[in-house]
């Protein structure tokens, strides 16, 4: 019965080959390329050693991008996880009837199923300086024409993009938390009520402690997502104006395809990989503790 030992391996083999070819090989190649000066249409590549990395750490746009990623992470934690938690607790509370619960769940969840390019285009029009919805609303409160370029101003561009993401993903995170809340046994709430605990006290002392793991996991997912960010910025500002709304993902793309610096882009990719890798280990650890 010796062959039985290999049977599981046989079944795993296709997946191992697939992941090896399409995931691990490119990652290793990417590490290798990050030591060269090269572009996509050339056969020549020049070995630079660590020069790409040294250049990156003296590159202003790189720091702008990192800071923007961090802003994205912080604001997403406050809104998606913080506000999402509040939404989840209220939607699951006794204040709402069964039908309105379903209604609000759907309403909040809906933005997350819309394709990012459609959302980007919609918000591009919302933020349009002369015709946009946002400026039109502001015009109700101020006199005359209000023409502020939300996506065109270096001070507001990245925050306008971040705001768009909060609109899209807060409901999604709230949904994950709602599922966790629904698993809490009803008896706990009933006995707390008998003891005279208010709605606020029940939320603080029962709901939040019992879904702590889920809050941690969504927090880590949100932070990882913040560093893998690409499409949101790409479809709205493409990093503009003057590179102030770049995040690591879009800056990597720009150096690869506009500056023709593939090696430099590979080095940025390595940095993104290291950051998300560390965060992923954190997530896996938190995830395993929750079981």
């Amino acid at each position, binding site marked *: 019965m010796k062959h039985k030992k290999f049977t599981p391996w046989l079944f795993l083999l296709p997946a191992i080959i697939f992941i090896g070819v399409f995931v691990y090989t490119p990652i290793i190649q990417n590490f290798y390329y990050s030591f060269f000066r090269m572009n996509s249409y050339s056969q020549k590549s020049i070995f630079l050693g660590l020069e790409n990395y040294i250049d990156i750490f003296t590159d202003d746009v790189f720091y702008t991008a990192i800071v923007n990623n961090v802003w994205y992470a912080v604001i997403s934690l406050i809104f998606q996880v913080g506000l999402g938690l509040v939404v989840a607790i209220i939607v699951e509370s006794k204040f709402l009837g069964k039908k309105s619960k379903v209604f609000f769940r759907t309403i909040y969840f809906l933005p997350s199923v819309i394709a990012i390019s459609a959302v980007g285009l919609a918000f591009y029009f919302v933020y349009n300086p002369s015709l946009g919805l946002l400026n039109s609303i502001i015009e109700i409160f101020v006199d005359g024409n209000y023409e502020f370029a939300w996506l065109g101003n270096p001070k507001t561009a990245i925050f306008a993009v971040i705001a768009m993401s909060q609109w899209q993903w807060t409901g999604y995170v709230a949904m994950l938390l709602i599922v966790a809340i629904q698993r809490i046994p009803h008896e706990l709430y009933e006995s707390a009520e008998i003891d005279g605990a208010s709605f606020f006290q029940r939320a603080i002392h029962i709901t939040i402690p019992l879904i702590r793991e889920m809050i941690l996991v969504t927090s880590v997912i949100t932070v990882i997502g913040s560093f893998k960010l690409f499409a949101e910025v790409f479809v709205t500002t493409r990093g*503009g104006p003057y590179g102030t709304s770049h995040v690591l993902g879009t800056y990597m793309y720009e150096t690869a395809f*506009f500056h023709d610096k593939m090696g430099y882009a590979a080095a940025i990719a390595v940095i993104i990989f290291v950051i998300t890798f560390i965060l992923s280990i954190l997530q896996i650890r938190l995830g395993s503790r929750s079981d």
Partner: protein
Amino acid sequence: MFNKKNIIFLLVVVLMVLFSGPILAQDTIELDFMHRWTRSPDNEFLEEVARRYEEENPNVKINVTAISNDPFKEKIKIILGTDDAPDVFFSWPGEFTNRFIREDRVLDITQYMEDGWKDDFIPSILEPFKYEGSIYGAPYRMDAKVFVYNKEIFAENNIEIPETYDEFLTVLEKLKNAGVTPISFGNQAPWAVSHYIGQLVAYNVPNDVYEKDIRPETGSFEHPGYVKAFEDFEKLTPYFNNNPNAITHAQARSNFLNGGAAMTYIEINEIPEIMRDREDLDFEESFNTFKMPFPEGAEGNPNYLVGFPEGFVVSANTEYPDESVKFLKYLTGKEIGKLEAQKTGFINGIKGVVDKGDVTDAIYSSSQMVLETEKLVNWFDSALHSEVWAALRVELQKLTDGYATPEEVAEVLRETAADVREDLN
């Protein structure tokens, strides 16, 4: 039904099909053809050119791929690095193509041109396709940049077409004081600003200095004319609409066409497009054009015009160089040129391809202006090395918004050019 005979018959049929495939394929040559026109009627026209060519050359099959303008710039770089590079593809002459030539990605077609083909072209339109003495492509359409103005707004404010840059600035001030937006400008994709800069550099920098500077190996951009060009551009910024960096060129153009501004800066190739898209407007009745006025005393040449032709090149890795060049010759030749002028309004680089009356007056007169020009100067973005332009476009957007001074912009230009020069030498 499934007796032996039937099965043998089926087998024979299957084998016949299998074996005839490769035999047929040997006779048919497939050429991949890639261009950047995704809108009607320009894409349909190129599709038609391919079908016509196939009819005349039954052994050739042309696979047409169209990718829109901005993604094309990225995709072509990637695909040229693979074995699947298209045989014949669109390219912007100048540094955009030269970088591919330096990497042996583009076929030198000088020897094909020697048989007299070269003489079919208007020399100034073919010239941009040369690199270090050899010819690498053929023009598909000529182009140049002009101001187009709203005749009614000019008449209402008693404005004459300005002759000098100072007069131009006076006109802009007068319009602004009258409550009109003088120039509609959309610079979200900063190639738009590179057209202004290309013209102003041609006016402010002596041509021999410019030619040396746009070669990445020798470019230093130390001539004071560059700062002067950025200063001249800066003088225009108070007269643009609000937030030019936040709106696209297309938005700015439709704003102008709807009467929202007195002028806008467009390529002459946009005129046929406007005429088709806006049947509600009578272009010749409502609008007219003028060249950007020359800043008096500037060191460049007042007869130079920004606007490079666009065309097609052949891949150096093509399996069928002769067939690809033959298709290129057809594509950019006189017969197609005449059809092209009729159907798309583009004028290619062949001598005498249109006479007055063949196309609308606006298109004819603008093409004549290009032909009468002493020299065409490349758009500044496609003239520069990619790294230099990548840095400069950020600075030029800042300059447009007043976040950078002309001297700061020139400083970045000099520094990145020096870095690139060092890398290449």
